[in-house]
């Protein structure tokens, strides 16, 4: 594991909550606390000792691949599953664990379901009013009208949910779950049912609505872009455990584990060796300062350096002779060191995303790395290239595997 210092950079969205990566210590203003939550299904540990504190007003996202236990964690918070071990506390009340098991209807926890789970036999307004104490009262009518206004569905109250588009259904589901003013709102893969274009629009919209409602929210997704763009903090999960919690920027730039690093961004690892002044990698030698927090005691260590496509550039190699292109001047890195572009590899794959290309380069001595180029710079598959580091920030690294 890595031994880097924790980040001090604040993400742009971390405005409502202070950014600290340690969540095991219960914050004074935590609305939701999980400690050592374990959930087993027929002997299988779906959730394996999760500790988490969610602060008042923040949006925290559980991010991880499918099967990592994030949805089970969410359902445990809602009371739809009961934890095998551990406790869940909502607003300073233990709702699960310590011999207590408060049923979901008695927890002040709202939830937006993946398929939205709108009641097809009720109108939009009736759906939104469903969780209110007296759904037929005038006060309920006012509350429903306010919420429909908040989610931008003014005048849709009498429609049937079956008449609505995916985005509109999501707005209704959100309004419905906000209506009883829950202490915590849970969102289970809220955008997975929407088509790609709508997804981007709706996640900004949902972030706005949650912000206006001032509600504390926990969402679950496997989509890193979604998690990084709307969350105040992100908890990366793997195999039922939380790997790292932090602001989106701190996670992206300072992943504490290989898993987090490889899950965020199209990461590759370039092997290298630390010397007294430099780090010698298979794609050249760079100043030691390029790596984060390296001191003399690491001299001689074999490491893997985390590189993302935007950290790398390739240039065509002329035959086996190495780079000759005018572009391939030695590059001055952020810390003032110079790099000598040298390592050769072969382009094995090319992803065209419109504005840019991502080239996959099979390095001669091992790993495949990815390089980001704008759409005008075209290299053919099979071409020999040299790859160099152009990062203008420090890079994370891990002891060699």
């Amino acid at each position, binding site marked *: 594991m890595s031994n880097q210092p924790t980040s001090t950079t604040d993400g742009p969205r971390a405005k409502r909550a202070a950014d600290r990566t340690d969540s095991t210590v219960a914050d004074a203003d935590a609305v939701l606390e999980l400690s050592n939550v374990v959930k087993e299904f027929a002997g299988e540990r779906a959730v394996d000792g999760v500790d988490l504190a969610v602060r008042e007003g923040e949006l925290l996202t559980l991010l991880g691949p499918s099967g990592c236990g994030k949805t089970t964690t969410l359902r445990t918070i*809602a*009371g*739809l599953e009961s934890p095998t071990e551990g406790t869940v506390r909502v607003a300073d009340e233990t709702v699960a664990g310590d011999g207590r098991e408060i*049923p*979901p*209807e*008695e927890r*002040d*926890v*709202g*939830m937006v*379901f*993946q*398929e939205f*789970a*709108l*009641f*097809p*036999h009720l109108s939009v307004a009736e759906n939104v009013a*469903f*969780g209110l104490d007296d759904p037929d009262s005038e006060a309920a009518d006012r509350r429903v009208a306010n919420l429909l206004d908040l989610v931008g569905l003014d005048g849709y109250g009498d429609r049937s949910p*079956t008449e609505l588009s995916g985005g509109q259904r999501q707005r209704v589901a959100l309004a*419905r*779950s906000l*209506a*009883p003013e829950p202490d915590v709102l*849970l969102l289970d893969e809220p955008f997975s*049912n929407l088509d790609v274009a709508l997804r981007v629009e709706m996640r900004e919209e949902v972030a706005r609505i949650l912000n206006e409602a001032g509600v504390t929210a926990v969402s679950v997704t496997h989509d890193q872009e979604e998690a990084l763009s709307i969350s105040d903090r992100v908890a990366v999960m793997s195999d039922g455990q939380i790997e790292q919690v932090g602001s989106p920027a701190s996670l992206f730039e300072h992943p504490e584990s290989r898993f987090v690093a490889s899950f965020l961004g199209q990461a590759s690892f370039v092997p290298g060796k630390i010397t007294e002044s430099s780090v010698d990698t298979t794609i050249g030698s760079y100043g030691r300062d390029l790596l984060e927090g390296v001191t003399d005691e690491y001299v001689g260590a074999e490491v893997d350096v985390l590189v993302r496509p935007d950290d790398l550039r390739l240039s065509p190699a002329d035959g086996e002779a190495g780079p000759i292109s005018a572009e391939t001047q030695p590059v001055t890195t952020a810390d003032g060191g110079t790099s000598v572009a040298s390592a050769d590899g072969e382009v094995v794959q090319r992803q065209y995303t419109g504005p840019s290309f991502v080239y996959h380069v099979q390095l001669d001595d091992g790993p495949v790395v990815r390089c980001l180029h704008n759409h005008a710079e075209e290299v053919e598959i099979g071409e020999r290239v040299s790859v160099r580091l152009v990062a203008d920030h420090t890079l994370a690294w891990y002891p060699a595997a």
Partner: protein
Amino acid sequence: MGAVGEPATDSAGVRQRLRRFLGLDDDGVSTPLVLLSGAIAAAVLSPLVWLLLRASEVPTDEALSLIGSSGDVFANSLALVAVVTTASVLLGVPLAVLTVQTDLPFRRFWTVVIALPLVIPSYVGAFAYISAFGPDGALADALAPFGVQIPEVYGLGGTALVLTLFVYPYVFLTTRAALLSFDETQLEAARTLNVGYLSAFRRVILPQILPAVTAGGLLVALYALSDFGTPSIMQYDVFTRMIYVELNSFGDGRNNATLLSLQLLTVTAVVVALESRIGSGEDSGYGAASSSTAMISLGRLRWPAMLLPVLVSTFTLALPVGILAMWFVRAEALAYEVGGRAFEWGFALNSVYVAALAAAATLTLAIPVAYYSGRSRARFAWLAERATYLGYAMPGVVLALALVFFSSNQLAEWFGPGVARAVYQSLPLLVFAYVVRFLPQAVGASRSSVLGVDPALLGAARVLGEPPRRVFRRVTLPLIAPGVFAGAALVFLTTMKELDTTLILHPTGFTTLVTYIWRVQEGGYYGRAALPALVLVVVSGLSMIPLLVQGRDK
């Protein structure tokens, strides 16, 4: 279907409209097929014509006074339908909820056990109950020394009880299917909105399963209305029993039977009309994943909750089968006690023989109609298919009565008494009655198979150079064969246990399982009826397999 540009004023336009009405331009539809389907539909509808013809012969003043005096029968029938339907809903819905949505122990087992009473023909159940609890019944006698008084089993109470016990599974099965397709995240959503299970059941689940409950209830109502055996054994004067009694009496009997039949048909038509309105217009969820995982935990009530299915199955299965078995054993041991004609396996053979004939005939007639209505969306195709459903709405007693009129009156009028005698209570007439009664089963099964055939396959066969007739033989027929044979098997098994039509139309001297049971139970020779009744339960059990399997898959 072809579009018509010109107004249909000339003969070409009329012909064009006729072709569209008959669906002649649809792929795979030919004139012989249309004519054949039309003829089958007409034959199936003919009993209704004979009944109406016969009714029109009744003098108006006599008819009015007869209808006036049938008020009691009408009230009795409605009371029976109301009680049985209500009781079936009260029994079927909680059992469905218990087995689908809770963590009741052995849910799979109980699901089968709860649906199983459908395999006991209700008249066999009624016979078992009478033989146990009736005057001098086995259990009544056994309990009398302990001062236990069995309430009167004859009349509304007994009839309603027995019918409910053996038909409530219709409500159970339809409700179960609806609950299985219910999206459980809706229940979870309700709970995260601070609504507990009981309230969520009322506000979320019930409104969505109501159509299914109603559909099941109407099936029960239809059954209660048209069932002949149970009220007859339990001596409760409803339409079916009175029609049978009047048919076998002299004087005004046949006029009475006719008018009662018309009244019964009218009430039945109302139920069927209600039912067909329920079927469509379902307001089901979208993107809902069906699931049978337990949604609610019964907690400490988990084991006590089993009392309900245990109690129900005691009365629906253990008791009647136990009684039959007891009679069977006793009859063996005390052979001298038994009177009446001894049971012969030849009766069972007769049943099999006539049921096989009926299945073959039904199959033959079902295929053209099913194929026509499956391939064409023309109005006439729809009409022909609907016509074959008459047997579904026409109680067996009424159908048999209409055929009696046809053979004894109509044929005598047309061809003389000799022909009438030859047809009346002949095997072909009996088989025809079965065909009318059970064609809906065969058409239903065959038609859904036809609809399941991918039209692209037929197109592919045509492109490969096969003319339509050979496409039907080489592609369609092999593909629909399983469905068609399943339908025929169902017809075979239901014919075996059919009571009313067999009783009225069977040829003299031609004894089947059913007519034998009926005769010996009328004579009170319960021991004699036990073995054939057990055989019928097994046969009937086989016929329920498709229904139970369907209920499980959903």
